[in-house]
């Protein structure tokens, strides 16, 4: 497989994952604000901070309100990781790798692109936001479903899987981080006594993991357990442990994989060693930040070994 094609396939998967997770993030935040008691005010700008996009946002917007943040994340072509921009990148990458991705995927991607262009403005109002976000998430799942159902498990498949799981792991750290931020911001608010459970419930929901969490733990939603579950559960497909296993698995099937496999193994052995589940404030945020840096370093190892 051509190095350049491998890299494009890998990025295709990353961008699709990013589109889905961005939609999930906005959906869950909207939901969270409805659930929290009146008087508890979480800022929308948190979402921009979580994605480390403050500079890019400040360049174009003065007001950090709901409308601007949602527009920035979904429909702003000048934000390089907005849903619209990510989909453009997916199209560019698939357009140039059509020979290795099932032909129907190209059609579904175009369909989703058309959907987003026609509907993203609706998402600015809460009334129609759900339909739009739901459409985006479903569109991504259709594409992934098609790939699961029809794509041959060749090298391209493993590069897709690498990209998908790396991006997914990164997004899971950000969704967890969203929970930590919300906890920190409501800590001293009298009205927010019940906020903790609402917040962590929404974090679970954002990754579609509420049901599986309950079945597995058979316990009420608690921060400590949720964080542990989303980091270390080996079975749920969006946890860090699961994503790292999938990455290791795919990497091992690719040619000249030894240096990559070694880097992954070393990451896996130390990743959960010093997590302090009793302290879900700043220490957890620092840990999540380190995790994002490590994932970035893993990406650099892929580039060096396969894409150059």
């Amino acid at each position, binding site marked *: 497989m*051509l190095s*350049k094609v*491998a890299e494009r396939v890998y990025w295709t998967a990353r961008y699709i994952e990013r589109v889905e997770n961005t939609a999930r993030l906005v959906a869950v935040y909207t939901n969270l604000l409805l659930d929290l008691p009146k008087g508890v005010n979480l800022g929308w700008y948190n979402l921009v901070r979580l994605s480390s996009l403050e500079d890019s946002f400040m360049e174009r917007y003065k007001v950090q309100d709901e409308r601007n943040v949602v527009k920035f994340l979904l429909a702003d072509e000048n934000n390089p990781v907005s849903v619209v921009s990510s989909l453009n990148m997916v*199209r*560019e990458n698939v357009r140039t790798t059509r020979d290795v991705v099932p032909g129907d995927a190209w059609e579904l991607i175009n369909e989703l692109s058309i959907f987003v262009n026609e509907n993203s403005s609706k998402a600015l109002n809460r009334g129609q936001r759900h339909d739009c976000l739901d459409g985006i998430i479903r569109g991504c799942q259709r594409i992934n479903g098609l790939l699961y159902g029809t794509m041959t498990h060749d090298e391209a498949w493993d590069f897709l899987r690498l990209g998908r799981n790396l991006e997914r792991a990164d997004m899971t750290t950000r969704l967890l981080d969203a929970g930590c931020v919300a906890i920190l911001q409501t800590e001293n608010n009298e009205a927010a006594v019940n906020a903790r459970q609402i917040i962590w419930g929404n974090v679970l929901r954002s990754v579609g993991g509420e049901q599986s969490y309950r079945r597995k733990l058979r316990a009420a939603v608690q921060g400590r357990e949720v964080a542990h579950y989303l980091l270390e559960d080996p079975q749920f497909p969006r946890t860090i442990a699961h994503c790292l296993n999938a990455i290791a698995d795919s990497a091992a099937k690719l040619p000249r994989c030894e240096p990559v496999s070694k880097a992954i193994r070393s990451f896996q052995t130390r990743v959960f060693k010093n997590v302090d589940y009793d302290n879900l404030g700043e220490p957890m945020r620092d840990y999540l930040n380190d995790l994002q840096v490590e994932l970035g370093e893993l990406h650099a190892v892929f580039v060096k070994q396969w894409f150059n």
Partner: protein
Amino acid sequence: MSINWSDYSPVDFFDELFSSTGNPRKPARRLVTYLKSLRDEEIEQRRQAAEATIREMGVTFTVYTEEGNIDRAWPFDIIPRTIAKKQWDKTAAGLKQRLQALNMFIDDLYHEQKILKDGVVPEYIIKQSKNFRSECVGVSPPFGVWAHICGTDLVRDKDGEFYVLEDNLRVPSGVAYMLENRAITKRVLPDLFEKIHIEPIHDYCERLFDMLTSLSPRKIKQPVVVVLTPGIYNSAYFEHAFLAQQMGAELVEGSDLVVQDDCVFMKTVAGLERVDVIYRRIDDLFLDPEAFNPDSTLGVPGLMRAWRAGNVGLANAPGAGVADDKVVYAYVPQIIRYYLDQDPIVPNVETYLCFDDKQREYVLANLDKLVVKPANESGGYGMMIGPHATKKERAEFAELIKANPRNYIAQPTLALSTAPTLIGSSLEPRHLDLRPFILQSSDIYVTTGGLTRVAMRKGSLVVNSSQGGGSKDTWVVDTEVNY
């Protein structure tokens, strides 16, 4: 406005679907009966369905503008153009004959040049040809074939006969659109495929792949075939990607390839892998900065060495463009007679060569009636359609011809055939042409029909998609089976 099939009147031209007002031609009868049975809203629904399909399939072509490159949706008219199988079979035989003779001609030019010595084609035409490559002299590609893929433009004049307008032997494009047009039509007019015996066209990509593998220098079970594209900003990029995908070949850019020890390799995740055959969609002069344009970043340094050493197959072979020249075109009937000792089956359009004093005199005196074309351009650029040109434009072309007579030819303005086309919500005749594709290596193959291109502007004769042309699905209909 509404669609009224009984009123459609193809005046002054040969119409592909109707012989006269209200009278469809035999191959079009069932099609017209069916379309008549649809209400206007239904036709509009089908048209919208076609548009949506094109957007979803992402069928695009790239237009260059000063603001940058724009991807446009492929312009498509849902009413197919029909051709009787009997007439097509004869035309196809003529196309095979033509490409065979052209390949013998090219091979001769790069070896003994018998045809020049025998005085059938004047020697200075080749000497002054921009597309003769001295780097190719003495090379013997497999089967003596240089132009493996040819796109020949056919037009129908008033008499209903097909004429060859030009042969595209360099990097002809359009075949992907021919295939996509059929895919779209099957989606929007599916009922008709049960009722009418429409000849299928889907085997092109397999034929192309077989032809390419036959050029492999290594006789192995699965030769590595790649499609070499200039990249995403080329107007035909969609087609390059489409063909690679359909053939299961790698789509590569020059930077993905490297030449070592006169062999071509591609850079893969597992290291370097040997390449056997390259379907190149890059012009000769950009293929290899070592041999041609040193500034080219699109090509692969050393590619010509590898090809000359016989270590890689190139389709089309470098230098094949020498026969893709509108002056050489004028000699094709003689070329066919010379090499094959046969009469040409499909005629040429009458052509005046401006380097001939007498013919140039005629051209200059009749610029208002003629179409003047440069010898080496494609895409409809740099030509002048006399009857549509202003006095000033004609004067400019007169100067151009006088300054460089070898570079210009002229042809009578043809009464290009028309077909009913949906314009807004009514039917209007629009001019069209046809580009079939011919493949040659050990054997020879012609597509069934080809790509029909339509000049969407009223009265216009320019069908190029870069200049506002559209297209139609082309049906070769076997009238003997069904009627």
